[in-house]
């Protein structure tokens, strides 16, 4: 059910907030064991907070998200609720503060259903690297849910929450949304405060939203966006009410299709579905323009060098002394930390830390990190170039649909290359929204992405909504 419909039902007392939260909690209890989208379910707190929300609704003082049950990715800090990053390292970590995005939801008296499963420290595209076990796709439980916000996307697709907060460093909101047949919004860098989001790659990380529609994602973004003095990279630019253009005529809008995103590496069924969406836009009066992003071929390597360099630095805080897992081995200070990190981190996290320290090492820095920074600047220029003649850009969200669990998660290079369609958006700090535009021969969802100019979330949500209004979605099978 759409958030606007839920709001109307709560406000008209067709359903009570406590009854609503019980519906979701019962469904989680019944169905989540088959997809493992949650790490922690906050049953008691959810019922208590729903009661509080109901009294606010009864007093006629409801905000847009009062009483709305949401899930939050387990790398976003929640006060007095375990926040694990799906890692042994933080298995028992209980934050003493809320992330700013969560604080803003609490101010609206939302209801937190629980913390969702993910790739360990948000490093991955399958949600199979979780210390607590992998997430399964609600459309076919033999397939991955995508990642790293796989639990968030699966929880929305399986109707185990009304919408979800995720995080997106290189596609981690959009790609699992594509794999699970839901809508994923990655806002412009700086629009949502990163305070309380456990840092992976600080210049790329952004909290995003996974929902049943572009309009729903907009409602949640309206609640969590805005300047925050606790995040030095938070933007003072206002994006206004991002749902404002929903339903507006998009006739005459110019949509760019960068040819490099439709190369041989992209699955034929995916290409066909995205091109059909382009035709749809043409039929409703948009102008389709072939464009180019020539540096795309360097994007994956540049992204992994930059993100891993930042991760190596950010994850150095996990020493087992101040919080998190601590090894019983190692007599000296350094040995104890080294054993703590050996035991606490999974293989993929270790690979990224080693790669980051390699790229930053004397003798390798110029060849790797500096070149990656040059490529980053070039990609920004190329996007600016496209946006001088286009309003939005249309691309596939991922080269394939969701694949079978075990197919490629143990091959890091294959996994990295699969991020080709999403990483440039983070590199350039732009907003993008992914929605379902078709299904493959096995019934698995195909995602397309609409990329916008910085701080122009309104336009991409409006263009996305226009497609969603006429697209017939297939429900998930669980």
């Amino acid at each position: 059910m759409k958030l606007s419909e839920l709001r109307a039902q709560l406000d008209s007392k067709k359903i009570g907030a406590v009854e609503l939260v019980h519906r979701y909690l019962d469904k989680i209890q019944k169905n989540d064991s088959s997809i493992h989208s949650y790490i922690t379910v906050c049953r008691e707190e959810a019922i208590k907070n729903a009661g509080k929300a109901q009294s606010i609704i009864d007093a006629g003082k409801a905000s847009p998200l009062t009483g709305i049950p949401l899930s939050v990715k387990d790398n976003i800090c929640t006060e007095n609720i375990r926040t694990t990053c799906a890692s042994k390292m933080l298995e028992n970590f209980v934050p003493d503060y809320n992330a700013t995005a969560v604080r803003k939801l609490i101010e609206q008296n939302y209801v937190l259903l629980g913390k969702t499963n993910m790739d360990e420290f948000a490093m991955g595209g399958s949600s199979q690297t979780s210390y607590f076990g992998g997430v399964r796709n609600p459309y076919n439980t033999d397939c991955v849910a995508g990642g790293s916000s796989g639990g968030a996307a699966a929880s929305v697709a399986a109707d185990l929450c009304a919408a979800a907060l995720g995080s997106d460093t290189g596609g981690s909101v959009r790609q699992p949304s594509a794999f699970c047949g839901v809508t994923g919004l990655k806002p412009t860098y700086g629009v949502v405060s990163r305070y309380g989001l456990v840092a992976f790659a600080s210049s790329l990380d952004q909290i995003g939203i996974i929902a049943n529609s572009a309009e729903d994602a907009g409602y949640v973004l309206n609640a969590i966006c805005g300047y925050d003095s606790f995040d030095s990279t938070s933007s003072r630019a206002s994006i206004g009410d991002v749902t404002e253009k929903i339903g507006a005529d998009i006739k005459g809008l110019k949509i760019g299709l960068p040819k490099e995103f439709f190369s041989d590496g992209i699955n034929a069924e995916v290409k066909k579905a995205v091109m059909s969406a382009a035709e749809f836009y043409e039929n409703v009066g948009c102008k389709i323009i072939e464009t180019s992003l020539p540096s795309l071929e360097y994007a994956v390597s540049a992204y992994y060098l930059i993100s891993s360099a930042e991760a190596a630095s950010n994850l150095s805080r996990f020493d087992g002394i101040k919080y998190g897992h601590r090894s019983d081995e190692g007599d000296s200070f350094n040995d104890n930390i080294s054993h703590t990190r050996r035991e606490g981190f999974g293989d993929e996290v270790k690979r990224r830390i080693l790669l980051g320290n390699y790229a930053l090492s004397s003798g390798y820095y110029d060849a790797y990190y500096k070149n990656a920074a040059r490529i980053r600047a070039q990609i920004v220029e190329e996007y600016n170039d496209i946006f001088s003649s286009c309003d939005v850009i249309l691309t596939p969200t991922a080269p394939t649909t969701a694949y079978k669990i075990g197919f490629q998660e143990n091959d890091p290079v294959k996994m990295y290359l699969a991020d080709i369609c999403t990483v440039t958006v983070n590199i350039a700090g732009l907003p993008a929204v992914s929605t379902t535009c078709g299904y493959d021969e096995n019934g698995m969802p195909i995602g397309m992405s609409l990329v916008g100019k910085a701080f122009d979330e309104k336009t991409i949500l409006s263009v996305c909504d226009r497609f969603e209004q006429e697209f017939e979605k297939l429900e998930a099978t669980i």
Partner: protein
Amino acid sequence: MFNITLTKHLADLSKIAFTNDELKKMTEDMSDIVALMDKVQNFDSEKETYSLEAVNYSDLRKDEPKPSLETEKILKNSKQVKNNSFVVPKVV
């Protein structure tokens, strides 16, 4: 070329202990990954107008002390605490 000595060096820099078998496997993985990263060396650009800091830090707040978390709360998640301090193995 990536080899076990380089992996060991990076493991030391990263403060992560590895067994010999783990080091061997990590060296294989890192060889493949670094081969993919080598792609950036083919990027042909004279571009010097780039920044190593992609993020604008010009809007920092004034450097004035603000209230912080209480000591008790900060220590709560540590495995070993004594006299309002974190306990670590002897350093000197």
